[in-house]
């Protein structure tokens, strides 16, 4: 019984911390991109102001919207909070069990799916087009990511881990421990795939297709205003942090608490802070720099990137890791 209470309290604390950190990152990102374009840029706390303003504004519900329109933002935020319980945050996920990677991927995809449902429920043709684009990109981007993730977990399984196919395994064994040249090449290929996947998951740069404000009037969000929009923005920020957390946990899982010699709660806090720092670094590469130097692609070009570039890259990376294990090439 106590365990459940502690886990719930931990989840609430994590939710408060991650919503603060992810909104702070959005402000930092806008500032960094502005500096890259030789502008002054908005204040660091701009996303908080945006969020508070949206919360205090009127929420209009369109005449053609159905019941799910109001439900979708709440569901999206609820799913992102549930996702936090399965996200590695510098320590093993709160509810880590055997095979929880499936739940993680399922919840991560569900956020995008709920956005699509909300957009279709709003009854606006712009939102419909945005929803179609989001659905297409959703279907395309998950496959290279899942292939890479499952290959790495499968490979780590052979190193001997406590819970197989759990996101907690990254804190026991990591992919760099393999050490062989072939494994290193495979890992670097998969790292590139994951960075591209991250950019498409948070829809920036090349992949800013569903929410193209100049073409389809903000896409799925076209009819949302006020509180509903604010909830969607928050769930998007959480999703961004969680997606980057996955990349950090797979490729850069090291904590610093063991080196400083901390233990207990202090170690957890130091690890979370260090994890946040690593997430910011990964997002800087995959979001700020990528956003500043690339423009939007057409949806067909983006789909081609996923199926003709990233998927083969993921297959090659996975095959290299498999060949390394099987010892076909000594």
């Amino acid at each position, binding site marked *: 019984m106590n365990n459940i209470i502690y886990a719930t309290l931990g989840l609430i604390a994590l939710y408060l911390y991650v919503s603060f950190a992810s909104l702070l990152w959005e402000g930092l990102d806008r500032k960094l991109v502005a500096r890259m374009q030789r502008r002054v840029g908005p204040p660091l706390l701009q996303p908080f102001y945006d969020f508070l303003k949206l919360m205090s504004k009127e929420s209009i519900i369109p005449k053609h919207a159905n019941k799910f329109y109001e439900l979708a933002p709440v569901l999206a935020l609820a799913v992102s909070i549930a996702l936090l319980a399965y996200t590695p945050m510098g320590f093993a996920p709160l509810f880590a069990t055997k095979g929880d990677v499936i739940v993680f991927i399922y919840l991560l995809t569900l956020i995008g799916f709920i956005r699509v449902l909300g957009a279709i429920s709003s009854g606006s043709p712009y939102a419909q087009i945005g929803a179609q684009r989001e659905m297409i990109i959703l279907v395309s981007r998950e496959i290279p990511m899942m292939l890479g993730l499952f290959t790495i977990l499968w490979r780590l399984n052979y190193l001997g881990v406590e819970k197989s196919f759990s996101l907690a395994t990254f804190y026991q064994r990591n992919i760099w421990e393999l050490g062989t040249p072939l494994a290193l090449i495979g890992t670097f290929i998969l790292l590139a795939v994951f960075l591209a996947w991250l950019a498409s998951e948070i829809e920036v740069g090349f992949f800013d297709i569903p929410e193209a*404000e100049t073409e389809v009037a903000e896409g799925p969000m076209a009819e949302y205003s006020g509180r509903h929009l604010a909830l969607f923005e928050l769930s998007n920020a959480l999703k961004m942090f969680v997606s980057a957390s996955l990349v950090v946990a797979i490729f850069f899982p090291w904590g610093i608490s063991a080196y400083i010699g901390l233990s207990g709660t202090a170690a957890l806090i130091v690890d979370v802070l260090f994890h946040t720092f690593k997430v910011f670094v990964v997002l800087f590469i995959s979001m700020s720099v990528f956003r500043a130097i690339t423009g939007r692609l057409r949806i067909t070009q983006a789909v081609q990137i996923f199926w003709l570039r990233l998927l083969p890259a993921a297959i090659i990376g996975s095959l290299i890791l498999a060949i390394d294990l099987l010892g076909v090439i000594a």
Partner: protein
Amino acid sequence: MEEVKANTQSQISEREILERRIAKLCKYIGRSPWVFHVNSGSCNGCDIEIIAALTPRYDAERFGVKLVGTPRHADILLVTGPITDQSLERVKLIYEQTPDPKVVIAVGACPTGGSVFYESPFTNAPLDKHIPVDVFVPGCPPRPEAILYGVVLGLEKLIKKIEGEKE
């Protein structure tokens, strides 16, 4: 020489005063005025000046101003053009689609008084015959500074309204 120096100094201080005024305002309206651009048959002159106000040279984003693609997200409507018969219904619709509190700014000579289309049977200027307008920014086209100043005036008016509601 002395006069020029005094002139630049006064310019700088005026700009600083303006920035401080915006920062103070933004505390109230949530510090993030999002702008939606309504084109009601404009010749594209004012539209280019609006874009110029958002470019790195004037960098309106430092006050949290963001150009959004749908009236549902907007706080400020920038209306350009002489409101042709075709666009009249759309302008009214967009005004109704914008959630409260909102500010309407008429940019350019056309929505202010009709400009070269004065007394034309196919245009419906001035804009405030159809929807409530907070600020008129005259000019053909107005300079980007004028548009930014118009936004400041509009926000100030809105703050007065909000404060009046509270009391």
